[in-house]
């Protein structure tokens, strides 16, 4: 593994590289710290739109020519938006690596960001949003994120809304690109059939024209807390099933209690043998799956439970999730459950780092989340220090069963609405058509 310090105006480019010579293929991804929370509230979707528009042509070649130049190399140029970063890159046959890096550089340093291509991407994103609204699970996730964080920047959807996309101009995209794609925001993750010297030289050449820029500072206020148990019922006629998401905002990735809470939530709902799966699927057969998980972002994460029962069992399943969560939040796991969850995570660690690309992903993620560079190297030692007292303390400090947001997509009638409203602690039930917020 070779690492270089974070890139400065003229210094080396921050790079995480894990070589693997087994096959003549390499993976190179360029990550830029940023993400949807940085989008202005009225321009949600700007980060995703900018990243997607980036690969629609350069000042040297149009979109069609660029796409063909990339793909003849056996490569893909994939853009992705995460909450804390955007990325650009993909796999390539080693024999074409230099040509691929040159194209990556061209895209980043000399993007065309043509107005007509930006408009095309906007229409694509709007169509994708509309298609997502036809999928119960996707619609539930969009509403859940919105309800969880409200108007806070963490509630910004990566794809924006039809209205926010409409407002974004080519000038907005150009300005955002200038802010985002700079050396001080960049971390390169590379794995496969390549070496540090060759990659470093090729990146220096390809990205020579990239400005140093200013890093985007992750400086957001804490997200709001919910009051009471709020339930949003998204009404879709003739549904056999009722996908449920339930949870609340939670701690961030660098919080000292994050690992202990991760262990506890893993025992509560992270595996087939954990409590939720046993209670919902194994004992009752109510849902194909039932889980709980902790998604960690820089300064705030999400605790979320999921299940997907038949509509006839929907109210009982929500009640069961509430009840099990309340018990868990009050008492945590038993000693045996915590030991089992912790030891299972520890023994499974080799799978987390089995391949070169997985190792790179962990190290890049640590850097982007503000974790120490040796986070993955010391993970097992820190995990070993998690006992039930620490896990329980984290659960009791961080989980809030009285402040849950719950979203369910199903066929709603008055009886179901009333039954949900009568569940313990429910303070608010909204019935909405199953459409985008």
């Amino acid at each position, binding site marked *: 593994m070779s690492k270089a310090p974070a890139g400065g105006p003229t210094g080396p480019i921050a790079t995480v590289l894990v070589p693997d010579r087994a096959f003549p293929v390499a993976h190179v991804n360029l990550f830029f710290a940023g993400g949807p929370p940085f989008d202005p509230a009225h321009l949600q979707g700007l980060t995703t739109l900018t990243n997607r528009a980036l690969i629609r042509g350069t000042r040297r070649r149009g979109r069609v020519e660029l796409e063909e130049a990339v793909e003849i190399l*056996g490569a893909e140029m994939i853009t992705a938006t995460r909450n804390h970063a955007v990325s650009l890159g993909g796999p390539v046959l080693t024999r074409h690596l230099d040509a691929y890096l040159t194209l990556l550089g061209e895209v980043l340093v000399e993007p065309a960001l043509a107005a007509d291509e930006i408009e095309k991407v906007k229409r694509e994103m709007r169509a994708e949003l509309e298609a997502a609204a036809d999928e119960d699970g996707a619609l539930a996730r969009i509403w859940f994120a919105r309800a969880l964080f409200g108007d806070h920047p963490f509630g910004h959807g990566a794809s924006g809304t039809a209205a926010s996309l409409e407002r974004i101009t080519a000038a907005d995209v150009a300005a955002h690109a200038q802010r985002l794609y700079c050396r001080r925001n960049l971390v390169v993750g590379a794995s496969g059939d390549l070496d540090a010297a060759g990659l470093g030289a090729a990146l220096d050449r390809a990205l020579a024209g990239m400005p140093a820029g200013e890093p985007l500072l992750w400086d957001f206020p804490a997200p709001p807390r919910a009051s009471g148990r709020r339930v949003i019922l998204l009404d879709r006629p003739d549904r056999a099933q009722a996908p449920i998401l339930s949870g609340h905002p939670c701690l961030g990735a660098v919080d000292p209690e994050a690992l202990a809470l991760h262990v506890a939530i893993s025992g509560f709902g992270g595996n087939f043998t954990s409590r939720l799966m046993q209670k919902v699927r194994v004992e009752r057969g109510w*849902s194909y799956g039932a889980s709980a998980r902790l998604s960690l972002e820089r300064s705030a994460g999400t605790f979320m439970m999921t299940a997907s029962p038949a509509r006839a069992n929907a109210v009982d399943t929500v009640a069961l999730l509430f009840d099990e969560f309340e018990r868990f939040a009050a008492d945590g796991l038993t000693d045996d459950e915590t030991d089992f969850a912790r030891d299972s995570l520890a023994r499974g660690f080799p799978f987390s780092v089995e391949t070169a690309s997985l190792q790179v992903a962990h190290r890049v993620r640590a850097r982007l989340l503000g974790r120490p560079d040796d986070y993955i190297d010391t993970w097992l030692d820190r995990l070993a220090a998690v006992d039930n007292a620490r896990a329980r303390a984290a659960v009791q400090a961080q989980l809030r069963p009285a402040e849950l947001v719950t979203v369910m997509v199903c066929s709603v009638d008055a009886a179901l609405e009333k039954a949900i409203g009568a569940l313990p602690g429910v303070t608010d039930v909204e019935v909405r058509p199953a459409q985008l917020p």
Partner: protein
Amino acid sequence: MKTHLRPIETLRHGPLRVDRYRLDNGLTVLHQPEHRAPVVSYQTWFRVGSRHEQPGKTGIAHLFEHLMFKGTAQHPEGEFDRIIEGLGGRNNAATWLDWTYYYEEVPQSGLETIIALEADRMANTLLGPDQIETEREVVMNERRERVDDDPTGRLAEILWDTAFEAHPYGRPTIGWMDDIAGLTADDIHRFYRTWYAPNNAVLAVAGDVDAERLMSAVHAAYGHMPAAELPPLAPVAEPRQTGQRRVEQALPLSAERLLMGWHAPAASDPQAAALEVLNEALFEGDSSRLQRALVTDGELAAGFYAFVPAFREPGLYEVSVDLREGVGSDAAEEVVLDAFAAVARDGLRPAELAKAKHRLETRFYRQLQSAQQRAAGFGYWEVTADHFGQLFTAAEQLEKVSEDDVVAVARDILRPEGRTVVRGVPA
């Protein structure tokens, strides 16, 4: 050397070596040693899937896959998963047309434990009424989630059911809801005794384990099991489709969805590689013809996918398009048909052919990264094409595909009159 420790075949490809073993009872073992990480992927592939089911009994292969986790006399319900999770491992299973497979990924120290567990449930799974009923409900919920309430799942089920008149590939692997409800304990016991036997199974093992350790443990755990008399599989010929078939289904959608299918060759058929290359050129990547015609420039669709079947017998090549709001699926159908007709008439440009092959080469290497991927590749091809080496042969065949081969596929397979079309329209 003891006979069970001696490979009956060794195949090398680049840095990979795969050894084949066979126990006296017919159990096949494929072993790919790989010592870069202290993990092992252990997969059990049974040559039975929904293709082997009888009308009225659909879904039994899949339901039985669920029941295989319900315990034995030695390991009561719940213990199997608990032991694997205790090892730090993960496990799951899947069922499809030709096969059912079970996999475990564990640290290499857990190998003997996994072998003992898998051997035990191959022979001794208990199937009590309570377990059957609970799991039947779970499977019904899975069907509601993946088919009944999933527009694409629902349309795909209709497409395959409509496209196949005779062959059991037309029946849904998850089963018709009424059939799932009607499966009896006797049906399930009979299915287990018929198909779950060492001579109908392939163990695919990749990772940090040497041959002597693996085969000693396998021999000890499985060697005593008797082979079963497997029922002969009657070949079913699907009549050549001579006219298009069309179905329209109203669904709670905001925009139309289009699914199209063409009968396509079996995985081991030489034409399969040409279809793969044609599909890559037309449907995969930002520069593909259909990405441009349907999405980027044509602006007809929100998204699409195309699926090249790789089954033992001729399957269905599938194209699915999610239209944008207000766009009729007729327009997308015309675009797809025009693209096939253009290839049948003019072939691919040399750059398109080269691009497709390069992209498929990259994908081939990417699917060999983890132990789980490698074991899955060997197991899959062993039960689908009767030889794990087809994983490598298929990649070589892709490289040899010529423009004439692609044109022949467009003419022979992607005939307009051979298509089945299902339109999902907003209710």
